[in-house]
């Protein structure tokens, strides 16, 4: 079987007057995977996603979605596309189920409305006017409409923003279910936990470009791990060390001391941790609040999207 991506972007650009929001993006989305698009506000996520949805034309580059140009040949892909915008509205005087039926009537092969209502735990709210729904219920209705047409490709722009933790987890379960059924998902999110939870791959955007792309493990691989501790002497008093007191560590990237707390960044976590522990035993030190962990997606994100911690501190 030939490999054909569901979404393929090559050199894609989008301009608003003099401002270029998307500056040459190459990205592929493979069938059945979930790609999380990460970035700070203004990084160009929504601008890029709107191009994939076919809501706007790209100023340069090539976009194929489900085998077609999503803007010029929109009618050919629209039935296979489920879209959840960041801010789309409802008529508040329609009930939940009336809104769903209206949407279902525009689709070629809608799922049964009752089934989708049940999937999103909205059955008990079916006959309530949309104007009386809570923010979380409205977001779930948003998602219900997006999945009502059996989409092959689901584009979710910050689907869980404004949801409480329990509803967020419910949405995650639902998205996982859709993935198991073979759907392909492009998701933007502010929540790195969400990306770690759901994404097969992540793409981090900064200033209109994708600056890193890969699995979560690949995305964080280049980031240093952390070791932190507060050294105490034998009787239990805090020791004020300087970085020159620390042992030589082969993986050392950066070290500093902040009010007694020693913070080490290393590219060789296991080896350097062993050196620190040995050094502590030899000097009779107790390492209070000892922490050692691999880089998180959040750390990779922060260093890529906003500049490194050091730059921020400086």
């Amino acid at each position, binding site marked *: 079987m030939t490999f*054909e991506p569901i979404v393929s972007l090559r050199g894609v650009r989008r301009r608003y007057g003099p401002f270029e929001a998307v500056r040459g993006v190459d990205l592929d989305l493979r*069938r*059945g995977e979930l790609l999380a698009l990460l970035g700070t506000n203004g990084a160009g996520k929504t601008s890029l996603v709107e191009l994939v*949805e076919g*809501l706007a034309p790209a100023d340069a580059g090539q976009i194929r979605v*489900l*085998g*077609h140009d999503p803007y010029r040949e929109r*009618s*050919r*892909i*629209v*039935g*296979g*596309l489920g*879209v959840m*915008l960041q*801010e*789309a*509205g*409802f*008529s*508040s*005087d*329609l009930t939940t189920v*009336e*809104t769903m*039926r*209206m*949407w*279902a*009537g*525009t*689709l*070629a*092969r809608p799922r049964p409305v009752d089934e989708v209502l049940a999937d999103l735990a909205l059955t008990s709210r079916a006959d309530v006017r949309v104007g009386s729904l809570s923010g979380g219920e409205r977001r779930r209705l948003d998602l219900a*409409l997006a999945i009502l*047409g*059996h989409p*092959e490709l689901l584009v979710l722009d910050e689907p869980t923003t404004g949801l409480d933790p329990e509803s967020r987890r419910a949405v995650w379960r639902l998205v996982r279910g859709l993935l198991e*059924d*073979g*759907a392909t998902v492009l998701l933007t999110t502010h929540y790195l936990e969400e990306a770690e939870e759901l994404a097969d791959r992540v793409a981090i955007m900064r200033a209109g470009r994708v600056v890193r792309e890969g699995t979560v493990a690949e995305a964080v691989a280049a980031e240093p791990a952390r070791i932190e501790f507060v050294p105490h002497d034998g009787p239990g008093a805090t020791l004020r060390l300087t970085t020159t007191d620390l042992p030589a560590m082969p993986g050392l990237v950066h070290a500093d001391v902040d009010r007694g707390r020693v913070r080490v960044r290393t590219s060789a976590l296991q080896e350097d941790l062993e050196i620190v522990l040995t050094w502590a035993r030899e000097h009779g030190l107790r390492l209070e609040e000892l922490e050692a962990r691999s880089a998180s997606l959040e750390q990779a994100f922060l260093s890529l999207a906003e500049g490194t911690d050091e730059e921020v501190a400086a």
Partner: protein
Amino acid sequence: MIGSTAPADARPASRTRRLLALARAETLLLVRNRAALANALLLPVGFVGLFAVLGGVGDDDASGQAVAAGVLAMLLVVALIFVVYYNLTTAYVARREDRVLQRLLTGSTTRVDALLAPALPAVVVVVLVQLGLGYAAVSAMIEPPGMANPVLVLVAALGGAVVLGAIAAATAGFSRTVESVQLTTLPAIVLILPFAGLFPTPDAISTVARFTPLRPVTELMGLGLTGTDAAGQTLSFVETFGAAGLPVLVLAGWTTLGVLAARRWMRWAPRR
């Protein structure tokens, strides 16, 4: 879904099905909006009653049939202005500001669908039903207004609705809020209503008035109901089609202008 390579059924529902689903929702919204509903149902009847009592319709020596036809034409014009133009402008602005248009356009709905959906209940339910009931009412109270050429009556109602619907979409582009529609619709109403042919106008103005958007509607109503032209001559069925040429052309011209204006000024998302 897995393994399907071609997006074989990635097409939306047929336009008829889409429109019916959207129009059903719009009908519910109209029924639930008391102000819009009162506008749609009571205003035209009230207006016609008021004008008929205060100003009278037609000349003093006009036949009962001519008076009945005049009342019906007035009913149609007022219904087109308030039910189609005013209510549709309000509906377009409300859907845009609620970001419903934005949502609809993410799915299978086209821009034309989104504009037609609120127009369907306005035209079908209100204008046509009102015309039917109005016909029965004037027949009972005055005299049957005749039906020389039903095709022209229908062209008057639908053509007028299309022109005003397009102008409503353009007007919606100038209206920031639902409330401001009261102001933004005023210029068109003031410019269109006096020349619609409901009231006697001096000859010089009358010639110009024939080219205003709703004058063809009253002319076509006269031709279609009583079979008399603007000069008061009674025409045969075939002759009414000939006399309808100019008004139909004027309607077509305004439709073109209205559509161009709608494309130029209609907005699909709120201003940020």
